[in-house]
């Protein structure tokens, strides 16, 4: 090692932080070099002076001051956490109970404040499969009003279309239709408006027994008409037009069948013009109860009453008979042709203004 390197290592040598080889080299060089010996001695003296510095005592209050600040810090940190959770054996059960109570309360509030919505009745498997085979796209119940109007327009134009179809296949169709196909024809509500209107107007003057008998007779007549040969059936075509039949479904484009399926899923909307709306409402409620249905919701707007009814689709006929007895009935949405299970019905009772 050279002289400069030895001098640089003297500080490490002083702390015994050199390797044995370096130590031997330094000692060998220092023995022959007075300058390095002097430098080493001065370094030792310097270190001795520095180490001789007396320790300074901190002020006696310093510990207390430090701990006061530490406690202040600890209180700030602990404050919110302790307030929330300590003592654990008391606060945790209370918080758990509170959470359960809040959850149950929130559930009940949401359940009771929601509008009276009943679960939608799923269409029967048969109807659903038919709609699926007719259209690859699933029939969505949310159709635009324009599409509904288009369906109705097509239904109105259908007699003209069917005239162009050869009647021969229809003659052969004397096989009795299944109950789902025949049932809509038996419903008095599905008759064309031109024929139904005089009947409804006259219904106010008829007794309920007569009304029921008339309704039954009409449904029987409809069944006979379906079973009749084509020429005979053509004479009663206006009644048959709105009843779904197998051949019409074959003639319809697939998308139309799907749209009709969607339309049928809508609630039946009825408007009853009665002289005493309040009394009519009570009678309707009684009739619904007798038919095994239930009033989901009642609303009153000035003189008009709105009844939201849920009942078996097969018993809708009976309700219509009662309504016809109470006043003039108008339908906004046609009743379901092949409905099964529960059926949602909206009945609007409008009072007939009395002339002074």
């Amino acid at each position, binding site marked *: 090692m050279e002289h400069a390197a030895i001098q640089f290592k003297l500080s490490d040598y002083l702390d015994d932080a050199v390797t044995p080889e370096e130590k031997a080299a330094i000692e060998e060089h220092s023995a022959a070099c007075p300058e390095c010996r002097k430098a080493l001695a001065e370094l030792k003296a310097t270190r001795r002076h520095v180490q001789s510095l007396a320790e300074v005592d901190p002020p006696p209050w310093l510990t207390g001051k430090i701990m006061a600040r*530490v406690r202040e810090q600890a209180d700030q940190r602990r404050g919110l956490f302790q307030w929330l959770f300590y003592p654990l054996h008391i606060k945790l059960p209370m918080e758990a109970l509170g959470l359960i109570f809040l959850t149950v309360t929130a559930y009940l509030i949401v359940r009771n404040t929601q509008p009276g919505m009943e679960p939608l009745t799923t269409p029967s498997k048969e109807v659903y499969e038919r709609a699926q085979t007719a259209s690859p796209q699933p029939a969505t119940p949310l159709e635009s009003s324009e599409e509904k109007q288009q369906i109705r327009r097509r239904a109105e134009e259908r007699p003209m279309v069917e005239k162009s179809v050869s009647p021969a296949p229809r003659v052969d169709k004397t096989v009795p239709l299944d109950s789902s196909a025949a049932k809509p024809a038996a419903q008095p509500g599905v008759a064309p408006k031109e024929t139904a209107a005089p009947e409804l107007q006259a219904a106010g003057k008829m007794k309920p027994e007569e009304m029921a008998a008339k309704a039954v007779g009409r449904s029987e007549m409809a069944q006979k008409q379906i079973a009749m040969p084509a020429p005979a059936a053509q004479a009663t075509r206006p009644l048959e037009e709105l009843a779904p039949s197998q051949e019409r479904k074959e003639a319809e484009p697939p998308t139309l069948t799907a749209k009709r399926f969607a339309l049928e899923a809508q609630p039946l909307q009825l408007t009853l013009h009665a002289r005493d709306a309040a009394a009519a409402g009570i009678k309707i409620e009684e009739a619904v109860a007798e038919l095994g249905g239930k009033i989901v919701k009642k609303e009153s707007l000035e003189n008009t009453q709105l009844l939201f009814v849920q009942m078996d689709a097969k018993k809708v006929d009976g309700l219509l008979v009662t309504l016809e007895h109470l006043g003039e009935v108008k339908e906004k949405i046609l009743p379901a042709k092949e409905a099964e299970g529960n059926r949602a019905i909206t009945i609007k009772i409008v009072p007939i203004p009395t002339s002074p």
Partner: protein
Amino acid sequence: MDDDTDQVSSCKKGDLAAFEQLVRKYEKRMFNIAFRITGDYEDTCEIVQDAFLAAYRGIASFRGQAKFSTWLTSITINYARNRLKQIQGKRRHEQFSLEDPLPKADGGMTTDPQSNDPPVHELLEKRDTQSKVQDCINALEPDFKEVLVLRDMQDFSYEEISAILKVPTGTVKSRLFRAREAVKDCLKQAMGEL
């Protein structure tokens, strides 16, 4: 093995008494380290308080990879270093001083009359040895001062100093050599022969 493991564990659980034990154990040592670096007693009191408070706040994150004393010293050195920078910054930015030369009408500056006081090394001779040594230490650059204080006054090993200052051991050796040489020269100038 760290002697303070139990107290540190208790502190992590929120035991203030355990932390107080640590304060009492290391307060004087941290005070002396900070005092030798700053050279100011009042500032040192503030530095030590802040350092212990910071240690309490951060004790949850102390993983025990180094000794607690090493970790605490590192915090104290940082606070002392920052305080020293503030003090030096203040001195540097003092724009006017009563001892500054006054401007003259001709644009020149009046200078103080030649002082009759003896030069610096003569003043140092009048003080006792300890004051001279402290003054020499105060005159060191902060990096050199820290190494000298930690090694020659607090007897930390090179490795511990390396961990405290977060510099390699070679840097510690180099700084220590320079610090000792500077103090040696300063003392030789102040006291003559060592």
